[in-house]
């Protein structure tokens, strides 16, 4: 067994122990295909694997796949699978499992539907190779099949045969930890999978060797934030899922806690409803854009040291950085906004902003957002709901003009849903054409150029307002080492606990 010394301490990893992770709540299910809820990826990222995953530079590399070859002008893709990879139920992963999984994912997930829409046929060439015949090239093939929220986890066909598109009959994957039990509101318990087929290569990002030092991973729902923090300080938990940056000043000097301040990887987002009679008007959306001063909004939401103001729509993914449209980012021209609003024929109908106090930073930002709009002459109706009501109302195009959301990390723009069907309904043919090119083009430089054009349109057509990038804090026990990347949820496959 190879072992990587921990960079922070230089100590040899210790094998054994149960890692106790305090979750913000209960996952809705343990089916990666099913939900965009990040808590599901946090737990199941250790149970299921995808054909590809991300290395430390966030480039897609093979995981369950061994390789993939593109031929026939991008219309034929052959994926070779690694041999001798067992599922937790003892079956070996084969082409039929991969096909059944991709087909289900292609019915349930938006990105999968996109791939299946251009797929003519998907067949097993031999037990360890599957072939896609495509109507048009799909340049982002490995990206689409990598680790993600609603990623294409590979499940055994035998399990899928007993499942349907909403429910998995059993939680079986090929990952380094296997499912033991789920007692709702008590814990989800995983244990080391001794039959795990370790992927070749050194550990890099989510890819390569997995140390599997921990015997068990225990995920405990602790919805109350004060209880999560107290539990970590008293040694009850080793890792906290999400914690407000408000705790940073008190926790950073506590010897019982290790706090890491992470670089920004998510952004605060005000989604506008392009089907509303008010915000459907580009001139009014521009007035909103001009009215805002992003600094106080971010301060209210995240606090002094926990944000940055950049125009990029993919913070955390340096390769995709662009300042296209930057001149329209944070313009702070309230007088111009007022003038534009007066000439727009805005009749003073209230602008309905939806938010929830369940996500305190979004609520705080909404309050400042409201004030800034009122200063330039908007009438604003701030509507505060619980999370479930908010996610229901958002889908109703007659119920709102704006809502606040946090856009989480995406390593590639095709994984950022800016399509016409996403809430807000930003539908312009030019933008949709650019998004389609992003999906089919495989040349990286060209894709970066196309993405910059999308970003330019984003600031010109104002379907949403990007306010700023948020930094997160990672709070753990000082005894926990070797936590992998955290952008797409933390990976504990190489983590270990000091005695």
């Amino acid at each position, binding site marked *: 067994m190879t072992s990587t010394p921990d960079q922070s301490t230089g100590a040899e990893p210790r094998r054994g122990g149960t890692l106790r992770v305090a979750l913000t709540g209960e996952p809705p299910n343990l089916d990666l295909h099913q939900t965009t809820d990040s808590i599901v990826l946090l737990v199941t990222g250790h149970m299921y694997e995808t054909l590809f995953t991300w290395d430390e530079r966030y480039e897609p590399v093979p995981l369950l796949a061994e390789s993939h070859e593109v031929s026939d002008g991008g219309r034929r893709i052959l994926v070779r699978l690694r041999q001798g990879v067992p599922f937790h139920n003892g079956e070996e992963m084969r082409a039929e499992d991969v096909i059944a999984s991709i087909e289900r994912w292609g019915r349930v997930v938006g990105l999968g539907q996109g791939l299946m829409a251009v797929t003519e046929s998907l067949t097993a060439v031999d037990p360890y190779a599957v072939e896609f015949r495509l109507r048009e090239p799909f340049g982002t093939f490995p990206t689409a099949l990598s680790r993600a929220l609603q990623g294409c986890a590979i499940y055994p066909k035998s399990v899928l045969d007993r499942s349907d598109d*909403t429910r998995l009959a059993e939680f079986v994957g090929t990952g380094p930890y296997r499912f033991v039990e789920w007692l709702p509101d*008590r814990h989800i318990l995983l244990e080391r999978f001794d039959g795990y087929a370790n992927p070749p290569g050194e550990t890099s990002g989510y890819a390569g060797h997995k140390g599997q030092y921990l015997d068990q991973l225990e995920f405990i729902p602790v*919805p109350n934030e004060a209880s999560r923090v107290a539990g970590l300080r008293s040694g*009850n938990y080793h890792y906290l899922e999400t914690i407000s940056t408000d705790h940073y000043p008190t926790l950073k000097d506590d010897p019982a806690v290790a706090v890491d301040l992470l670089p920004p990887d998510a952004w605060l987002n005000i989604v506008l409803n392009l089907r509303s009679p008010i915000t459907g008007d580009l001139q009014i959306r521009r007035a909103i854009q001009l009215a805002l001063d992003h600094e106080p909004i971010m301060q209210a939401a995240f606090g002094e040291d926990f944000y940055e103001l950049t125009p990029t729509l993919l913070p955390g993914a340096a390769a995709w950085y662009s300042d296209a449209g930057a001149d329209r980012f944070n313009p702070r021209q309230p007088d111009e906004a007022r003038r534009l609003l007066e000439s727009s024929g805005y009749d003073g109908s209230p602008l309905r902003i939806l938010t929830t106090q369940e996500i305190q930073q979004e609520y705080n930002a909404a309050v400042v957002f409201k004030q800034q709009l009122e200063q330039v002459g908007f009438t604003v109706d701030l509507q505060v709901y619980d999370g479930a009501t908010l996610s229901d109302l958002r889908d109703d195009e007659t119920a709102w003009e704006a809502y606040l959301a946090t856009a989480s990390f995406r390593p590639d723009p095709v994984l950022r849903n800016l399509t016409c069907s996403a*809430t807000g309904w930003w539908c312009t043919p030019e933008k949709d054409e650019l998004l389609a090119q992003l999906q089919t083009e495989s040349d990286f430089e060209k894709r970066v150029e196309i993405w910059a054009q999308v970003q330019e349109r984003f600031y010109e057509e104002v379907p949403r307002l990007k306010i700023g990038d948020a930094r997160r804090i990672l709070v753990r026990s000082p005894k926990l080492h070797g936590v992998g990347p955290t952008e797409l949820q933390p990976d504990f496959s190489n983590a270990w606990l000091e005695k």
Partner: protein
Amino acid sequence: MIAYVLRRILLLVPIALVVGTVAFLLLHVIPGDPAAVMLGPEATPEQVAALRERMGLDEPLAVQYPRWLARLARLDLGTSIFLDKPVTEAIRERVGPTVQLALYALLIAVAVGVPAGVVAALHQDRLLDRALMLFAISGTAIADFFLAILLILLFSVTLRWLPSGGYVEFSVDPVGHFQSMLLPAMALGLSIAGLPARLVRSTLLEVLREDYIRTATAKGLDLEAVAFRHALRNALLPAVTVLGYALGDLLGGAVVVETVFGLPGMGQLVVNSIARRDFPVIQGVVMVFAGIYLLCNLLVDVLYVYLDPRVRYAGG
């Protein structure tokens, strides 16, 4: 007496029906649906609509209500949308921690509240009385989640004596069980201990002014012996009945305390089910809570008749 009890039991049926119907209608007019919660924050409206259809959530109220009633008549509370099991089973799994919590809290409330009331009464209007009553009123006034967090900070974070959360079953590890239940029971128990304390104090003061007490003290018995041997027994009657009614507070408090300490009880179940709009579970827990409440009230009323022969109900 038997006729009275039977009549009261029959009356429970329409009351339960009204509670259930109001809860059913409320749940179905509030916005929010399980499919949207399940799919997470970045799902598209199309995905939500598709899942809603696959889960059969798009049926009209006129279809759902009669079906719910018919099931209820067979004591079938339906199937949980998230837990994928019958609601009755989900509730049965969670009854344990909640009942234990309520019981321990009640014990703590009585163990702290009754002596405090007695001592306060015996030191009426003196410093000790004032201090005890201030303590009693503070306990009632402080929100139980705040008290819970203060207890965690003291006993878990600073002293490290007790765990800050989690649940251990008695059959698995009795010591661990009491360790895990002590803080939650204290948080809940101390928040209602003021009730018996104040009640015992005031009724004891009343009883101590009765003639037979004066006779006893005149015979040379000291006041404390009289208080414990004669007066307390009579003063406890109202306290017992009020504690019965306080069960509502206990159940309501359990919802909050279970969330803070992560106890897998009915309170935690209902809070999470509300957040994810698991309608059958919310409905089921409301029915069970209402049932417990109604039965306890009935029990208290019957006890009253039994314990105090002066109380007579019409037809009783």
